[in-house]
């Protein structure tokens, strides 16, 4: 591979496809189109696919810039895509977000087929969420479809979308975590084994998971032993057959539903420690801190259903709302979709075990801290869950939060709070330093405490802090 221009920094996850790659230079994002992909890209341009997908909000927009911006001599064109506010990973998505991402991928493939093109890969990582909508980000994923050929990305679609969604809907929502342990999607034999009868009773899952897994085993190695017939003869796969497969996949995905019930926080929302007046007081305080900080992005940790995240996103600030509970994140996503809200991205995130760096050389998929820091981190009604619920020392929480954001709006929940009393009811109180002075000492080592305001009507205190290191 030719040396990359010194000013260009290739994006770590962008190496699988020889058609091109993504890089940054001087903070600007570029996508290089390599000469080997020229014919396909020109066919894509001539087909009108890109404007059609842009029109429907299914593809990230880009402008074309001069070749002088290229990262190396392989380039035939250079694109400058619009930036996605925050890159998220499939195992962090709400169930319905994941389902929408799958349907969007199928819609894009249908649109491509109508123009004699096809998606050459169907990776879930090619979808990102912008303003509550799934957007395809890999502009170089299209190629001309040779008549009669099956869909080369069918396996990847089933592994990246159908299998995890079926497992989440038909077995357990927590099986989304399998996408974290399998970088190229859930192997179909594993999905088949875990789904059991669920993969036999649904005709579509029977075909696309169960028989698919069996076909993979049956034909394993055949590709190396035999040659596909070349030229002449009857075409093996019509466009109608391909559309039939797509329609069947669409039906399979659309039939998968998940109703949040019985998860950790699903019934938690009705139990609030606040009177209406106290809640409003806290709301006004957070809003004031946000106005003063004027952040470009906000990361809300333990965001629940996003009530406080909306104080930021409602001001036009791109906001990521993390919560450990898939039910809370699902409710948040559905509300965003229903109200057509913008600037808010809800993600499932266990802060005691945040998304790690994954993939080749541990650098293909960025960890949560690697995707930061945010201008402002919100940590409301969270500290007791980490310090007491998970035994994390306050110093360690402060150090970790300092990697996530430049400013911190954090609520201290003292031991006398009824929520903390619930946490302490089932464990020995070994938390001698868990008091306001201990909290201020621990966080004061990493942050300058600008304000500490008691929340009226509660025993809690809201702090505004600024990170000591730039």
């Amino acid at each position, binding site marked *: 591979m030719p040396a990359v221009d010194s000013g260009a920094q290739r994006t770590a996850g962008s190496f699988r496809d020889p058609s091109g790659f993504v890089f940054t230079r001087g903070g600007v994002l570029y996508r290089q189109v390599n000469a080997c992909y020229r014919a396909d890209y020109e066919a894509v341009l001539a087909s009108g696919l890109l404007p059609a997908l842009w029109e*429907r909000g*299914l593809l990230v927009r880009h402008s074309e810039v001069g070749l002088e911006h290229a990262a190396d001599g392989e380039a035939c064109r250079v694109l400058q895509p619009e930036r996605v506010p925050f890159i998220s990973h499939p195992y962090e998505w709400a169930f319905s977000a994941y*389902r*929408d991402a799958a*349907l*969007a991928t199928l*819609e894009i493939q249908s649109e491509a087929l109508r123009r004699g093109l096809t998606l050459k890969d169907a990776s879930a990582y090619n979808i990102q969420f912008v303003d509550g*909508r799934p957007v395809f980000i890999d502009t170089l994923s299209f190629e001309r479809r040779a008549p009669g050929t*099956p869909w*080369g990305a*069918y*396996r990847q679609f*089933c592994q990246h979308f159908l299998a995890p969604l079926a497992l989440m809907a038909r077995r357990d929502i927590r099986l989304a975590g399998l996408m974290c342990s399998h970088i190229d999607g859930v*192997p*179909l*034999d594993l999905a088949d084994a875990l789904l059991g*009868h669920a993969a*036999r*009773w649904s*005709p579509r899952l*029977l*075909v696309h998971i169960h*028989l*698919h897994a*069996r*076909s*993979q*085993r*049956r*034909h*394993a*190695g*055949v*590709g190396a032993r035999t040659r596909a017939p070349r030229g002449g003869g009857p075409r093996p*796969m*019509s466009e*109608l*057959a*391909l559309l*039939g*497969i797509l*329609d*069947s996949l*669409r039906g399979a995905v659309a039939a998968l539903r998940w109703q949040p019930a019985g998860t950790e926080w699903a019934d*938690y*929302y009705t*139990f*609030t420690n606040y009177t209406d007046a106290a809640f409003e007081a806290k709301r006004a305080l957070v809003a004031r801190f946000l106005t003063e900080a004027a952040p470009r992005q906000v990361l809300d940790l*333990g965001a*629940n*259903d996003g*009530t*406080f995240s909306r104080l930021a996103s409602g001001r036009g600030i791109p906001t990521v709302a993390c919560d450990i509970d898939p039910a809370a994140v699902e*409710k948040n996503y*559905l509300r965003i*979709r*229903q109200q057509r809200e913008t600037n808010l991205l809800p993600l499932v995130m266990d802060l005691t075990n945040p998304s790690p760096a994954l993939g080749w050389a541990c650098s293909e998929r960025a960890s949560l801290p690697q995707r930061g820091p945010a201008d402002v981190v919100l940590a*409301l*009604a969270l500290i007791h869950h980490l310090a007491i619920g998970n035994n994390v020392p306050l110093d360690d929480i402060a150090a970790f939060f300092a990697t996530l954001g430049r400013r911190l709006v954090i609520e201290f929940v003292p031991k006398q709070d009824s*929520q903390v009393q619930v946490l302490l009811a089932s464990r020995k109180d070994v938390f001698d330093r868990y008091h306001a002075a201990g909290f201020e000492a621990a966080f004061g080592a990493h942050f300058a405490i600008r304000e500490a305001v008691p929340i009226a009507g509660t025993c809690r205190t809201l702090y505004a802090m600024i990170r000591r290191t730039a």
Partner: protein
Amino acid sequence: MHLGTILATVRSGPAVRVLILLAVALPATAQAAVLAYLDPGTGSLALQLLVGGALGAALTVKLFWRRLLGLFGRRGPEVPRNQPADLPTTNDASADR
């Protein structure tokens, strides 16, 4: 062969009846399972060639049926697009925080 396979196939009509044959014709072996990790792609292509015709036919019938219903002033179920319309309402709940 699983009972579920037979029942699902019978219920689904002729379009997928061919699946019974497939379920019988795809025996798994331990060696094949190992090779499947090296070459999962060939089986995926083979399955498409096998079921594509039936699923294409099913789509044709579905579209024909929808058009027929349209002639009589009824609309068939819409194919879900990018943003499915089936949105459950959510409570405007506030939490502990």
